[in-house]
């Protein structure tokens, strides 16, 4: 039995909005990243996993239980951080945590621990709380019951950089304890630090699922070489390496090199007079950025068609 299982989930809200035939599984003890532009369907998928929405077709399961039909049972072992930070009316922070604790029937020792970790004082009025403080309360509420499975919808938005670090370390710790996490996020460093596998969703469809390790140890590297003289610049292409881009005026080339070619590449390049030699580190961001560029056009305006180099 898989921890989280989404089977050809479809929900069409019309106007091209919704999710179409989305399927993926998250194994026990795994942190699964969910990436995609705004409006791509990340939250819609979360909504179905939380049992808020009824699937048009397909189904979502957590611990083998249907998220829609067995909502209350599923929630016993699920912690959730909503994308929205609006907290219930009429309560201060402490009152909110007390309510959540009552609804979850969880012990209070862990709440104190979590509040200390995130340096949060819950006694203030909600109206005077910043988004970050509300987010911290949501984090405490999600983890207070020590659930096995966590659904986190952009959990660190609104947190300051220090707290984002604290949160990432905390989730790492939870992962070591064997917790399963579905993390929707726009922050590449966060996804890079935490995720084992990453799914890309775009326009309601999952277009790619990759292992984070494969991306990090990407087997090709890109080098930017600027030659000191015109002669070197002219001769280099004959070496037969893949030149991705050339800039004649700067006498610069961008070369893609397979790891297996590294030795040959280094031995050849010493024969040239080189002014500058830069390895472009491959980050998750580079890898995924092109998924973010939208091909959709709204009216006459085409977005994301700008060229980058």
């Amino acid at each position, binding site marked *: 039995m898989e921890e989280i299982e989404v089977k050809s989930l479809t929900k069409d809200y019309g106007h091209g909005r919704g999710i179409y035939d989305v399927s993926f599984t998250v194994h026990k003890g795994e942190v699964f990243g969910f990436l995609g532009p705004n409006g791509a369907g990340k939250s819609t998928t979360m909504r179905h996993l939380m049992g808020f929405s009824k699937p048009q077709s397909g189904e979502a399961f957590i611990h083998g239980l249907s998220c829609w039909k067995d909502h209350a049972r599923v929630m016993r072992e699920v912690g959730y951080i*909503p994308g929205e930070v609006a907290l219930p009316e009429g309560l201060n922070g402490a009152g909110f945590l007390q309510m959540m604790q009552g609804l979850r029937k969880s012990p209070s020792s862990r709440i104190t621990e979590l509040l200390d970790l995130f340096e949060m004082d819950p006694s203030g009025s909600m109206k005077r709380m910043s988004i970050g403080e509300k987010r911290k309360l949501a984090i405490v509420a999600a983890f207070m019951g020590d659930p096995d499975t966590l659904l986190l919808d952009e959990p660190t938005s609104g947190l300051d950089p220090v707290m984002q670090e604290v949160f990432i370390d905390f989730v790492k710790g939870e992962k070591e304890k064997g917790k399963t996490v579905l993390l929707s996020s726009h922050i590449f460093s966060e996804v890079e630090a935490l995720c084992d596998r990453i799914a890309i969703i775009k326009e309601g469809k999952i277009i790619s699922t990759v292992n984070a390790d494969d991306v990090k140890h990407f087997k090709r590297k890109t080098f930017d070489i600027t030659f000191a003289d015109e002669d070197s610049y002219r001769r280099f292409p004959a070496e037969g390496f893949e030149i991705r881009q050339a800039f004649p005026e700067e006498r610069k080339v961008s070369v893609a090199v397979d790891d297996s070619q590294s030795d040959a590449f280094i031995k050849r390049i010493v024969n040239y007079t080189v002014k500058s030699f830069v390895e472009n580190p491959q980050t998750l961001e580079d890898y995924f950025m092109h998924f973010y560029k939208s091909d959709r056009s709204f009216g006459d305006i085409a977005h994301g068609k700008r060229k980058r180099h």
Partner: protein
Amino acid sequence: MFSFPLFKQTVKANGLIWVVLTAVTAILLVQFAVLEMTQNLLFLIFYGVMAMLLPAVFILISSNKLFASQVDRGSMAYVLSTPIRRSKVALTQMAFSVLTIALMFVITTIAHIAVNANDPLSLELAGSGAGITGLTGDLTTEMIVKVNLSAMVVCLAMSGVCYMFSAIFNQSKYSLGFSGTFVGVSVLANMLAMFGSLGVEALENFKYVSICTLYDYQSILTGGDDWIIKGAVALAIAVVTYVVGSVWFCKKDLPL
């Protein structure tokens, strides 16, 4: 099928307005019943208008917060991220709206009984202001209980309708719009119809567009039975709307 932590939150979110409106209702009632100048208007103004208007304000404000505003703001996501069934949420909110209305009327009833026992109001005086003639004797405790019961079931029907709108709509503006129109029209038409009973006959027809017509203190004062049938209809409306609202909330898609 009742969640105490959620109930507590609902009480905290609506408690103040309930206390204020209940206090205002009770104070107005005592004032009308005690002051000689206003005793003849006790039924016409207080029981005729205020006993509907003040609970209606509370119903309108609180029922929107039971579901629609929480779904609209997104805070319902926190409640539903715990092992709680939607039916339990619905029943807890229903318990809140029924109990607050009931308690409001229990308080005004007790206040009126206490004041009336001290100095019973003559029915002739009470009736004269409301356009009812030929009444004899004093206002009894039984009558006070019946009048309040009649008013309470109508308020429950109003509360049920607003509860239903709040459960159906995902946005406060629609929930408040429909509830506000319903409550506003009912209360206004009730006031206009009151002028009808005072002799402006053209206005009397307004009673047909108001749910408050099901509340009938006149029949209680004259010893009739009409209020029982009308009360039963109001109760039926309350039951149906509470059930429809709850079932709807359990089955609908939530945009959280």
